[in-house]
């Protein structure tokens, strides 16, 4: 498997936690892929799309499609951004056959990174060890739009010394919801408060998930509550970067 894949970094990873992007590259290269980071990319446009701002969503979708369409596959370290490209880009061009076809072509070859490694590459991490107990939250967009559930768990299972403890309500939304968390902070807080309590109650050392937005929400609440649980994007552990700083820890 020597695919030429483009990494769509996502705006949140670009700004908040570049390690996730580098972890994705490391794992993809270990799986035999050649990874390119197209320079024309910024944000997939999801904030505009979910705010009802269709014209800006269309403009950013076109920019992203142009940047990504030359590649064999597009890999994204976020179920939510991958879901936007895969599921929602084609819907944006109902009245534009040419762009709809281009959007569909890009959608068909866009994958969430862990799903790509597991299902397309058939790869597993080798020689990665991390003695810790971790619990996993299934981020909603990845889970329900892309069916991401077993793939990260299969990859994590290959890490020596890592034991997984189930999170009760792992499929319940954490209350992030993009701009929801700042538009309705009190409701979001009530939801993430329950999520943080459930995470704490597992007694795990690490909280893992596949979307940085949800992770920042949960980790931020855990930290505010004084919890010692450390949060990582699952791809960081899978690529062997789980010994580095967790979310909110200085390098």
């Amino acid at each position, binding site marked *: 498997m020597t695919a030429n894949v483009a990494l769509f970094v996502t705006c949140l990873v670009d700004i908040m936690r*570049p390690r996730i992007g580098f972890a994705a590259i490391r794992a993809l290269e270990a799986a035999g892929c050649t990874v390119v980071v197209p320079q024309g990319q910024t944000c997939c446009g999801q904030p505009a799309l979910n705010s009802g701002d269709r014209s800006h969503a269309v403009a950013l979708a076109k920019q992203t499609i142009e940047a990504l369409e030359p590649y064999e596959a597009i890999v994204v370290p976020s179920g939510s951004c991958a879901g936007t490209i895969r599921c929602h880009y084609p819907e944006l061009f109902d009245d534009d056959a040419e762009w709809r076809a281009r959007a569909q072509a890009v959608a068909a070859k866009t994958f969430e990174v862990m799903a790509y490694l597991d299902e397309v590459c058939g790869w597993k991490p080798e020689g990665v060890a991390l003695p810790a107990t971790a619990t996993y939250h299934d981020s909603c967009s990845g889970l329900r739009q892309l069916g991401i559930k077993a793939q990260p768990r299969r990859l994590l299972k290959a890490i020596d010394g890592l034991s997984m403890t189930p999170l009760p309500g792992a499929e319940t939304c954490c209350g992030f919801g993009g701009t929801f968390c700042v538009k309705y902070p009190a409701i979001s807080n009530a939801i993430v408060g329950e999520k943080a309590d459930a995470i704490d109650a597992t007694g795990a050392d690490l909280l893992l998930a596949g979307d940085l937005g949800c992770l920042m929400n949960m980790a931020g609440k855990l930290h505010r509550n004084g919890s010692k649980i450390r949060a990582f994007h699952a791809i960081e552990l899978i690529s062997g970067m789980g010994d580095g700083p967790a979310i909110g820890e200085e390098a």
Partner: protein
Amino acid sequence: MSGFTDRADAALADPILKIAVERTTGTAEAKRAIAVDAFPDFEAARTRAAAIKDHVIAHLGAYLEQFEASAIASGAQVHWAQTADEACRIVIDICKAAGARTVARSKSMLGEEIGLPHALEEAGIVRVETDLAEHIIQLADERPSHIIWPAMHKTREQVSALFRAKHANPHEEETIAAMAQSARRELRGAMLGADVGISGANFLIADSGAVCTVTNEGNAELSLVPPRVHIVTAGIEKIVPSMPHAIHMLRMLARSATGAALTQYTTFYTGPKRAGDRDGPEQMHIVLVDNGRTKMREEGLAEMLRCIRCGACMNHCVVFRQIGGHAYGGTYPGPMGAVLTPALDGLAPNRDLAHACTLNGKCQEVCPVKIPLPTLLKGWREKSWREGLEPTSMRWGLGFWAWVARRPALYRLGTAVAIRAIRLIGRKGWIDSLPLASGWTKHRDLPKPAARSFMAQYQQEQRK
């Protein structure tokens, strides 16, 4: 501050409400999961249920005409109401013509939607709510907070106090059975003495003209059979072609609502009392209500007309479970209410409903008729944006951000500046207070961004 935000804040500050909502939704969620697991192929059953409804909605006119003809043939009288007011007027006129002083009403959300309780009161007609939860609501002078459990916002402890204060002969023992007996003593006489019984319909069967109701208390039967007149108010989307279709929908409805295989009472009412019948009403009137449904079908909300009012979407909604039903402000709460209320009561006063959703998709996953609720909510967001109802700060903010994001080189510069600015605040990797992001930092800490963006680091690595 909007009305919605105020109501939500009040709900969040009420610990009793939280207990009440969690008790009921938690039980419903667990029981539904067991029922769905035990069903041979629930996914296929959902697909079939959605297909049945889509077929009917696409051919609504033909099925309504068939239903009308069948109902008339069974001896019922059929009335058509374009609006809520028209529907209420028809009901009141029938009550007045029957010389009705007291009506027994079996729980109906359509009745709530058209404002029937208020219309009856204005007409000076005594209304007795016979569903136990509606009885509680009536005693407390409140509105339903859930479409299946109208009094779910109340704990049994609160209901006990209410019964003791309002019932003529209240329970002495503090048990649920004793409380139910207290309500029974209060209601039974009123049901048997009513002049008119009013119900909604869970399904209207086109080929037989039958009206189907489901209850767990048997109150519909006791409210509708003894009185001289039975009036049905039903939304026009309640039609199914025939009995086998109704049976399929009933299997979906009960499991999705309460996790039961079937409700305790499922009754099909076909016309009034016939010659030789021992009991039954002398007249049966069916009021078919549009109230915006035709417009919904034409304006992109046809999928919403699949809804069979099971309540699964709200039982599984993280937002509903925090704020309860009253915070939504409309007749229907939760995800289905957030889609319906702007259609029924206007978008401008209800734009919050479309936004107060994390788009997590759980509602769609549990919907027995596969309504794409998140997509429909996003449709309202788009309409709100197009019509200029979104706040100026949001429009300018998003517009500016999108303008920059469409210029990758400028965007890189912008992110570098933003990262530097944000990193000046906070200490040790976390920011506990950030201007312009207080919605975040009021309740949780924000991790500091990395010193340099991914793109900056990557480009430097490539140059090596």
